[in-house]
C-alpha cells in the first residue's frame, strides 16, 4: 500500500488580499485520508475547506507544504494529470453536450476505445439510474438528475479519489436526504475514497467515516461523527456541531480524566477532560441538551443544578425546556417524550433540578 489516499503535510495557502495584504486561507493543515474512506471537510463558509479541496484537485497550488495522492507528491502537477475527479458545486455540466457526451468526456481524454467508452458510459448512467437519458441536454434534467450526471461523469473515469464540493447544496431538503443515503451507498459499492466538502453538519454526520471540522483555515478536530459530537475538543466544534450548553467556571480538582469545575454560585460539577487542564484554570463545561435530565427538586446531588423552567416547546419526539439557573444563565434541556416524561412533564414556573452524567459533559479551555 502506497500510504494514504490523500495526505496533506503542513499545507499553507496564502492569497493576496484586496488591500495588498496576505491572507492565509489554509494554515499548516495536515490530514491523512485512508483508502476507501468517506471523509468530510466541515466548516462555515470561508473556513478554507473549498480551498483545501481545490489544492487536492490541482486548481490551486499550496503556498507551502505538500499534497500527496496515493503516496505520490503532487508538486505542481496540473489538474488534468491527477488521478482525482471532482463533482462541482453547481455540477458544471457542459451545456453544449448531451448527457452521454458529458459522461464520455473524461474517457475520451484518456483515449479509451470507442466501444469501451460506450459501454462504460452506459454502465455509469445505469449506476446513477439515468439510463436512457444519454441524448438529453443538461438543461432538460431536474437538479437531482443533473447532480447524478455529475457523479457519473466523475466516477466513469474510476478515479482513485473523488472530490465533492458541496454536491447537494443546490437540492431541496427531501432530495438532499435521499441523495445523502444514495451517495453513501454508492461509495460503499465503488470503494473509492470520497473527500466531501460541506457546511451542513447533519450531512457530514450522516455520511462520513471521519470528519475534519475546520475554522479559519485550521482543522480543529478530526474524528468520527461520534467522536466529534460526543467529545468535542474545543468550544468551536462543540458549538458548530449540534446544540450545546456552555457553563463557565474554574477547575477545582482533577481525578481520573475528569475535572471538578466550580460554577458561579458555588455549585460544582464533574465533567470529562477533552484537553489537559490544571487546577485553577478558567474552563467551559459543554453539555448537550439531550444529555440533561429534569428532576423534581430534591436534596442536592452531584452534577445537579437548580433552576426554574421558563419555557417549554413540544416538538413531537422530544420536548425542549429552557431552564434559568440560579446564576441567571438559561440552558436548554431536551427530554424524550416517553410515557414517564409525559406524565410528570415540568411546566413553566416549576423549580427543577437539572442533572447530567460526568462522562457526557466536556471540559474545554476557552
Amino acid at each position, binding site marked *: 500500500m502506497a500510504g494514504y489516499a490523500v495526505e496533506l503535510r503542513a499545507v499553507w495557502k496564502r492569497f493576496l488580499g484586496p488591500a495588498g495584504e496576505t491572507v492565509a486561507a489554509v494554515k499548516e493543515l495536515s490530514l491523512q485520508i485512508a483508502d476507501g474512506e468517506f471523509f468530510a471537510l466541515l466548516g462555515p463558509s470561508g473556513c478554507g475547506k473549498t480551498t483545501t479541496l481545490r489544492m487536492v484537485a490541482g486548481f490551486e497550488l499550496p503556498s507551502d507544504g505538500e499534497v500527496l495522492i496515493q503516496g505520490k507528491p503532487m508538486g505542481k502537477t496540473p*489538474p*488534468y494529470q491527477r488521478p*482525482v475527479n*471532482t463533482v462541482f458545486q453547481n455540477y*458544471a455540466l*457542459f451545456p*453544449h453536450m448531451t448527457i452521454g457526451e458529458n459522461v464520455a*468526456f473524461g474517457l475520451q481524454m484518456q483515449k479509451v476505445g470507442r466501444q469501451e467508452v460506450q459501454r462504460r458510459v452506459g454502465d455509469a448512467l445505469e449506476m446513477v439510474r439515468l439510463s436512457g437519458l444519454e441524448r438529453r441536454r443538461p438543461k432538460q434534467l431536474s437538479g437531482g438528475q443533473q447532480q447524478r450526471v455529475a457523479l457519473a*461523469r*466523475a466516477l466513469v473515469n474510476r478515479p482513485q479519489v473523488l472530490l465533492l464540493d458541496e454536491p447537494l447544496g443546490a437540492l431541496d431538503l427531501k432530495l438532499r436526504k435521499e441523495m445523502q443515503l444514495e451517495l453513501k451507498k454508492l461509495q460503499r459499492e465503488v470503494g473509492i475514497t470520497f473527500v466531501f466538502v460541506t457546511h451542513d453538519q447533519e450531512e457530514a454526520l450522516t455520511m462520513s467515516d471521519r470528519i475534519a471540522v475546520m475554522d479559519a483555515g485550521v482543522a480543529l478536530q478530526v474524528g468520527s461523527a461520534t467522536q466529534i459530537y460526543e467529545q468535542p475538543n474545543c468550544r468551536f466544534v462543540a458549538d458548530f456541531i449540534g446544540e450545546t450548553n456552555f457553563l463557565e467556571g474554574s477547575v477545582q480538582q482533577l481525578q481520573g480524566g475528569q475535572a471538578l469545575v466550580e460554577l458561579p454560585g458555588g455549585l460544582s460539577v464533574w465533567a470529562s477532560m477533552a484537553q489537559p487542564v490544571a487546577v485553577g484554570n478558567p474552563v467551559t463545561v459543554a453539555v448537550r441538551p439531550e444529555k440533561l435530565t429534569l428532576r423534581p427538586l430534591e436534596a442536592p446531588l452531584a452534577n445537579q443544578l437548580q433552576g426554574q423552567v421558563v419555557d417549554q416547546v413540544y416538538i413531537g419526539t422530544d420536548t425542549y425546556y429552557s431552564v434559568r439557573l440560579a446564576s441567571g444563565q438559561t440552558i436548554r434541556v431536551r427530554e424524550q417524550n416517553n410515557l414517564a416524561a409525559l406524565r410528570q412533564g415540568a411546566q413553566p414556573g416549576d423549580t427543577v433540578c437539572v442533572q447530567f452524567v460526568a462522562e457526557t459533559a466536556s471540559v474545554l479551555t476557552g
Partner: protein
Amino acid sequence: MSQPRQSPWLAALSGLVYFFLYAPIVVLIVFSFNVSRTNVVFEGVVNQGPCGPFYWYCELLQNRSVADAARNTLIIAVTSTAVSTLIGTLAALALQRYEFFGKKSAETALYFPMVTPEIVMGIGILVLFSALFGWVNSMLPPGLRLTLGLGTVIVSHIAFSIPFVTLVVRARLHGFDSRLEEAAMDLGAPPLTTFLRITLPLIAPGVLAGAMLAFTLSLDDFIITFFTTGPGATTLPIYVYGLLRRVVTPEVNALSTLWILVVLTVVGLSQWFQQRE
C-alpha cells in the same frame, strides 16, 4: 386597470420617424426599375432586353469595373474580418480573465478609436502610411516599393474592426462559467483541448456575431478606405461615389439595392447568432 390611451400624436410622430428612415431606401429600390436614365422623375418600369424590369441589374452585372470593385470589397471584408475576429476574440479573453499591469488603460485605449471621428482616423492612417513608406521605400529597390492599395486598406480595416469584435465577444464572455473549464481539466483535458472543446463552442455565438459586425463595417466603410486605398484597389463605396460625380443612372440604384440585401442578410444572421442561447 384600463388600457393606456394611445395618443394619435405619438403614433403620427413614430410614423414620421419610420418614414424618414425607410423612404430613401424605398425610393432607391423603386428607381432601380426606372425607364429614365436620370434619377429625377420616375417614368415607369423599364422593360428592355432579355432581363425585362431587371434591365439595370443586368447592365450592372456586365460592368467590369463593378465586378472588380465588388471583388476588392469582398477580399478586404473577408480578410479583415478573419484577422480582426481572431485578434479581437483573444483580446476579449485576456481582458475578461486576467488581471495585469495597465489593464484599465489597455481597455480604454482599445475602445477609444470607436468614438474618434472616422475622418481623423483616416487622415491619421494616411499620414502614418506615407511616413512609414517614405522611410522604408528609401531602402528598397524601385520594383519592391510599397504603395497604398489592397494591403493598406486591409490593415486599416483590421485595426478599426478589432474594438467592435472585442466588445461583442466580451459581452458573451460576461456570463461564462469558468468552472466549466475547470471541470474539463479535471476530466483530463489539457488547456488547448479545453479551449477548443469547451470555451470556443460556448462563446462561438459571440465570436460569430463579432465577425458579422466586422464584416458589415468593412463592407460599407467609405472614409477610411478613401484615404488608404490606391490604384487598382477601388471598393464598391468608392466606386459608387465616383459614379455620383458624373451621372446617377439606375445602375447605381440597382447596385445599392443588391448591397442592402447583402448587408441585411449579414446583420440578420448576426442578430440571430447573438440571440441564440
